[in-house]
């Protein structure tokens, strides 16, 4: 039994965990749900030894664990997969796996052996691995999470902790992955899974514990609760609408989807091709997004979405093809997938983070000199309007919670009055509140005549928001017709790609 008793943890003046008691039993999949900032990450970080609790104890099968030591946690058999993968950027994926687990039992690093064992586990899961010897640095978030999962499984852990692992998996991968979790359960292991998807928590887990504001509010048996009840427990005072399961949602047209009234094309991409890593990362991608349209791009993460965004942002030059924005490239704003690495400068104040957007920077620069006080006042206004919970325009971005970081990214993208918005997994890791808010902002932007390219691994989100849909597979973009707007058809396209490429 994995148990936490009376865990309290503070960060400065903030109480992240308040006398939390938690129990998970062998042969159980236990889901941990809660809003952003509820304390889920803090709790699993304490289990994994990444954080030391202020007070309280952690025990595995009755034996107290040395807290605050990742090594001790691992030795006790607790392995964790984090939402932001912890990998060595400049090392190949084989080296990463060998360092993390596969190779740790031998004195010499056995890269080939590690890769072989990883392939065996990956094949069982239906995971696709990167090309031999590929460094991690250019891999997508989805590929990184898959590597992390393999690494954690290589320890044959007694306790496996997963922080939002399913967001980046394809439907077919998801099934195999859940099967793996069930096998672990059957072998008497403990699986703790952190998730925002309540339907998933109920479907996968045996029991669900709800955290709110650093406290455990309830633990429910999955069979005896509902998504609606969990949502209520999570949010507290606010009434939540019941979350439909993915399948049900996909089959019924969403009333809130925008009506397709489109203006002139605002973003036109013709035959965009990007060669690299010995293959075509983007292969003749053509599409256009009209003013007022939200165009969705579905697909398993790692099929060229990241490269498409990088080309849009001007970070990479395409090998061939054209990209046209009306009226010009300045009118395009991008919200990148990995907000901490690509979107924010954590040790800069918030007002300077807003200045990263060229349009904002140009607005507050006169002959090359920054109008600091007006930029700060502008930032204070943004913080107020969105609203972003922070200690003010001069506080550091690092002090923002995940949801507030994303609000800042959205606010910044819209601050430059763009005509075209390219967003990539914009709601990944956000809670219900924040997700609804971001969706509302996107709809408003489109309603006001903006064009949105919504790249997402969340089918629910794509179905709810987009008026046209494309599927990305192995660097190619296929337009989905109205007849294709069906979960199984799209899932087939996506997972088929995952198995082949």
């Amino acid at each position, binding site marked *: 039994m994995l148990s936490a008793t009376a865990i309290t943890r503070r*960060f400065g003046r903030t109480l992240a965990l308040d006398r939390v008691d938690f129990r998970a039993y062998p042969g159980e999949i236990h889901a941990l749900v809660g809003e952003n*900032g509820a304390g889920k990450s803090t709790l699993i970080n304490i289990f994994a030894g990444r954080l030391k609790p202020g007070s309280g104890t952690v025990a595995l099968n009755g034996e107290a664990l040395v807290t605050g030591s990742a090594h001790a946690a691992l030795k006790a058999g607790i392995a964790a997969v984090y939402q932001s993968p912890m990998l060595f950027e400049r090392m190949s994926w084989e080296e990463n796996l060998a360092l993390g687990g596969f190779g740790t039992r031998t004195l010499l690093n056995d890269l080939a052996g590690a890769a072989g064992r990883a392939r065996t586990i990956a094949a069982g899961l239906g995971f696709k691995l990167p090309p031999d010897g590929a460094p991690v640095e250019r891999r997508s978030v989805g590929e990184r999470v898959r590597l992390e999962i393999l690494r954690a499984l290589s320890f044959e852990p007694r306790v496996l902790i997963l922080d939002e692992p399913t967001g980046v998996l394809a439907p077919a991968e998801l099934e195999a992955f859940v099967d793996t979790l069930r096998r672990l359960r059957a072998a008497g292991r403990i699986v703790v899974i952190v998730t925002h998807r309540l339907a998933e928590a109920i479907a996968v887990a045996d029991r669900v514990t709800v955290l709110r504001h650093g406290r455990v509010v309830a633990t429910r048996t999955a069979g005896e609760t509902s998504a609606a009840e969990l949502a209520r427990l999570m949010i507290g005072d606010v009434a939540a609408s019941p979350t439909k399961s993915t399948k049900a949602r996909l089959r019924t047209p969403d009333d809130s989807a925008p009506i397709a009234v489109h203006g002139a094309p605002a973003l036109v991409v013709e035959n965009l091709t990007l060669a690299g890593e010995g293959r075509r990362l983007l292969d003749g991608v053509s599409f256009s997004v009209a003013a007022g349209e939200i165009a969705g791009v579905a697909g398993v993460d790692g099929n060229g979405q990241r490269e498409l965004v990088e080309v849009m942002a001007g970070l990479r030059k395409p090998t061939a093809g054209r990209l046209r924005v009306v009226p010009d490239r300045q009118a395009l704003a991008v919200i990148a997938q990995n907000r*901490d690495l690509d*979107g*924010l400068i954590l040790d800069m104040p918030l007002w300077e983070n807003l200045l*990263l957007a060229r349009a904002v920077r140009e607005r507050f620069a006169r002959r090359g000199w920054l109008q600091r006080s007006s930029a700060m006042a502008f930032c204070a206004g943004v913080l107020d309007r969105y609203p972003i919970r922070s200690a003010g325009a*001069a506080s*550091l971005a690092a002090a*923002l*919670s995940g949801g507030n970081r994303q609000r800042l990214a959205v606010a910044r993208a819209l601050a430059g009055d763009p005509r075209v918005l390219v967003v990539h997994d914009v709601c990944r890791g956000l809670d219900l509140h924040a997700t609804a808010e971001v969706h509302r902002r996107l709809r408003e932007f489109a309603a006001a005549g903006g064009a949105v390219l919504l790249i997402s691994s969340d089918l629910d989100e794509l179905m709810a928001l987009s008026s046209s849909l494309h599927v990305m597979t192995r660097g190619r973009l296929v337009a989905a017709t109205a007849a294709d707007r069906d979960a199984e058809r799209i899932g087939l396209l996506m997972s088929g790609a995952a198995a082949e490429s």
Partner: protein
Amino acid sequence: MGGAIKWRIATMATSLGAIASAIAIISIVLLALGASPLAVFSDLWQGAFGNWLAATDTLVKSTPLVFTGLAIAIAFQGALWNIGADGQLIIGALAAGAIGPALGRWPHPIAIALMMAAGAAGGALWGGLAGWLRARREVNEVISTIMLNFVAVQILSWAVHGPLMEPSRSFPKSVTIAPTAQLAFYLEPSRLNVGMVLALVFAVGCHLGLFHSARGFELRAIGRNRRASAFFGIPIARITVAAMALSGALAGVGGAVQVSAITHRLYETMSPGWGYEAIAVALVARLNPLAIVPAAILFGALDNGSQAMQRADAVSPVLVNVIQGLVIIILVAFDAVAARGMRGALLGDAEGAVAASDAAAEAGDA
């Protein structure tokens, strides 16, 4: 409110704490050796600031450290690890020393301006070369700047043995620069000159450039997160070359001031290692241009006071190097920012910065 300001005050406090700790550790060592720390530090102080001559000489010795310190700060703010301020200073001095003898026909202010411009151009060339190699050829600037230091030393040596050697050819030194190209001493016998004033002007300029200009913001953004900077269309390559050239120019002006005010000609050795000491100065100053000035004066005072300390207490002046080294080690050991910067230098990615900010993020999450 004012999180960033509080953070800045905290980092400055760490610097002062590191200095105090270094002095405390040295005191214990001195006590163990049977010497009186009080006497030693008092003599150190006397040697650095005890009288008019000592105090002005401290300022004179600090001046090149301000220039090289600013050079380091500008580069490090952009995560460009310029270890070549020494070479850039040498090339700047060489350029100024080479044109200096020919400036006799020019009025004093113009001759001085030409000296400084030559120094800046020489340093900019040397720094900019490393910047170009980094931006266009992906050559690690740590390696290229260190190598360019050796090249600079050899070029200077060749110049004072060869084309620039004085006519009598008895000693490896160049012809004296024209009197119009010389910066006068104000209150002789003190060697006080306008160099320190110039250094202050440059420090203010660097501060404004870094924190009040759009380009300075872009440079700091690159230094803190290259990937995000690239995503937002900041021209990384261009700014890398420009920042390294500017960094070199600052060191080069330091070299020109040294020739113009102090040596009046070129010798085989133009720098006792100011370019390296400047790294310590810049770290103590937290890469803040205005704080470079007091940090440089502190290091200049330690250098200057060490001789008096040796005479009075028979304590080796090496003790001062130990203090300087201790300050840096303590600072790096207790300071996440410096540690992260160094890790960033070694790994060349933003992952370190992200990991180091995790704790803060956790606080925000809760």
